[in-house]
């Protein structure tokens, strides 16, 4: 089992790292099982690739597995072999049952966070001139209407944020509004959570439909204020 020892240790070590070490790094969180599975799959692929590069390493790697499965010269491991033969199908059956049986758990999240905007919003550009006054005014509107959830620091940590799952967007994160055009934000603010298209199901957004309270000009100014306050720039093509 010598040549098999390292791969087994590597797999166990990788699992322990993903499950127990990575989540405890400051600013991190537990990884979903789908991601752990993905990384373990890559690790296993790497092991198989490396161990089968040469004839010797392949034999050293597969040999013990083959001998164990065939029961050839394994001495006292016979009992373990039979145990594996009994337990493995049971494990597969248990996994199959677990993944197909009716459960009272809610289904896995597969929400599209950034669904495509309706066609009528795609060609829009901000009609409000980008002046310091307008940006300042936008920040004022933001403070009044948006900051309770999205935070005074534009980081998604407003006083009301803890009440929502999913949490309000963190605009300071370079992977949120910095990836989008201004017209996209205009649509999301104007139409809110109820205006999300079908691909955004199950419409888990508490964003109000601001078009009933704010004029378009204010929304455009809020957008400018958001980008400026979060130190981000909208996606443009020029």
């Amino acid at each position, binding site marked *: 089992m010598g040549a098999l020892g390292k791969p087994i240790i590597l797999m166990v070590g990788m699992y322990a790292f993903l499950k127990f070490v990575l989540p405890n790094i400051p600013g991190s969180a537990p990884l979903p099982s789908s991601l752990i599975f993905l990384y373990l799959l890559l690790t296993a692929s790497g092991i198989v690739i490396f161990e089968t590069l040469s004839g010797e390493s392949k034999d050293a790697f597969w040999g013990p597995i083959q001998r164990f499965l065939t029961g050839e010269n394994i001495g006292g491991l016979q009992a373990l072999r039979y145990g594996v033969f009994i337990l493995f199908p049971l494990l597969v059956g248990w996994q199959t049952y677990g993944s197909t049986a009716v459960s009272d758990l809610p289904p896995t999240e597969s929400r599209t966070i950034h*669904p*495509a905007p309706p066609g009528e919003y795609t060609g829009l550009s901000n009609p409000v001139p980008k002046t310091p006054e307008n940006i300042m005014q936008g920040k004022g509107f933001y403070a009044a209407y948006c900051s309770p959830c999205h935070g005074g620091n534009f980081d998604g940590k407003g006083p009301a944020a803890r009440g929502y799952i999913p*949490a309000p967007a963190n605009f300071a994160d370079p992977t949120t509004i910095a990836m989008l055009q201004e017209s*996209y934000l205009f649509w999301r603010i104007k139409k809110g959570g109820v205006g999300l298209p079908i691909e955004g199901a199950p419409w888990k957004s508490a964003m109000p439909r601001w078009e009933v309270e704010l004029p378009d000009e204010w929304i455009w100014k809020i957008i400018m204020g958001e980008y400026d306050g979060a130190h981000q720039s909208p996606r443009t093509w020029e």
Partner: protein
Amino acid sequence: MSGIQEVETIQWALRAIRGQGRWLVGLLLMAGWFLLPSLGFAAEGTTAGPTEYRDIPYIGSRNLVWIVAQLHLLLAGFVLGVPIFAWLCEVIAWRGGEKRYDKLAKEFTKLLTSAYATTALFGGILLFLLVAFYPKLMNYLTDVFFPSFLLYCLLFLFETATLYLYWYGWDAMQHGRKKTLHVFLGFLLNFFALFIMIVPNAWATFQSSPVVLSEGTAFERAWAATWNPTWWPINIHRLIANVVLGGYICGAYAGVRYLSVKSTEDREHYDWMGYVGNFIGVFGLLALPFAGYWLMREIYQYNQQMGITLMGGFLSWLFIIQAMLIGVLFLGSNYYFWLGITHRIPGSEAKYRRAMLMMLISLLLCLAVWMTPHSLVASIEEAQKMGGAHHPLLGVLGVMSAKMTVSNLMILITFMSFVMYWRAGKQDTAGWAKLGKAVMGAVLVVASLAVIVLGIWGYFVPAIVRINYFSTSQVAIVGFVILTITPLTALLLKSAKTTTEMVWGSMPPRAGYALVLNAVMVILLMTLMGYARSSSRVHWHVYGVMRDTSPYAYSPALGSASLIMAFCTFFFCILVAFIFWVATMGDKYKTAGGAGKGELPHGIPAMAGGAPEERAQG
């Protein structure tokens, strides 16, 4: 003919082909399948006005058109990619004098004739299906593109004539000026093939990014519609993808033959052919991500809705699958190189094992980044712990800056794998070898660091700076590395001493399987991206111009779409296997009839160049 006579005729036919009954049943089923459209009915029913759609029971018109279009496209990719491959091999043989390249080129050109006919057959079926199922759309497209339809017919005539001359004139044009003419014919074949590809590309890209002129002559309108924003990006992307497909299919063919041949000569030949196929595939693969990135950029710039649908919307998960397939392709190609070092160059394993391990770890890390989605699949409980669908630490790996960085690094690693293979078994003798290697090492390290720095910096600059400058700089850096290290290595190896001769035919069976896996991955990738390109139009036949009002005006979910993709991949593999089998049937017959492989020069199998005069010369 009366009913009784008909029955007697069928009985007679069945008796006549006794023993071939299964074939007949198969053929009848095929015929029935293709006659199914005759059962089609007008979706409009009895309403007044022209018919807009027709449907077909069970499978549905959309699915049938999807399958046939995808198969046609795959076959076309093969038929347009292989001539590039074959012609390059012929030129190498012509200029370098290595006859085995000429034989390889001929071997693959032979496949072209039957593959070409099959492609045209599927093109014809597709056209009939489109006219039958989507008359309104086809009427509109004909109105826009009529002049280019005529041009396409002419191109087809030229391509067919050139292909026949190229193939049937192979043996007659082997020497002197005739060989030059033959090489020129090969060039012409590829020239016409390029235009045969880019003309229909205009029709397909017009549907995604239409440019519609309401006035002007038919030619002006067709030209404006042709020169649409995504036309050239897709032309370049498909051209490179066709080379990749041709290379990997060649590799897979060699892999299958390698696994089944008995003689040492055949093993050597197919081992070498597998190497050439993998090399050509990798050569194209290095450039493919850049072309894909350019295409996606143009789509996003053309229309935000389409761009987000693809990159952030409901199709975004498709790109995680794409990452997985490309990752397997990179791993498979590198694995094949590493197996080559270990098995073809005895004694090299100990020297390069550590380097291979480092490369493998780097590739897997890059792949892990590429495959990490921005929005994760998580249960409610897991999402609560993460504070949403984005992981606070790993979420940053889910955006383009990270993906571009790792794809560039994977290209660099793959290139270095090839360089390592190239150098294995040779000892430098040049006086400047140390300096040269130090320069190459420095270039590689600095370039890798620059790619990573630009990738991280990309998070802190406006999107347009990242897209227009950082991403292009990363590509330029990788290009610079390739263009610097390749000639330097070639110069070093010119005076190098061969310490270990390459032993062809010594690869283990898993090398053959790796080649087949690579080909399947490329085909799956093409079917996946075909679905992506069509689905990005959502409920439009012609985006923003002609709405799809049929019952199929929805995009199928990725799960159900993957069934069609898998079927297309499987069926295409069967078709290619059939084409290979048909094309080599005559050679097997000849071999069995006495012209054994032992009589061939260097034991090259008969199908590699079965012309009698060639054997005599050998």
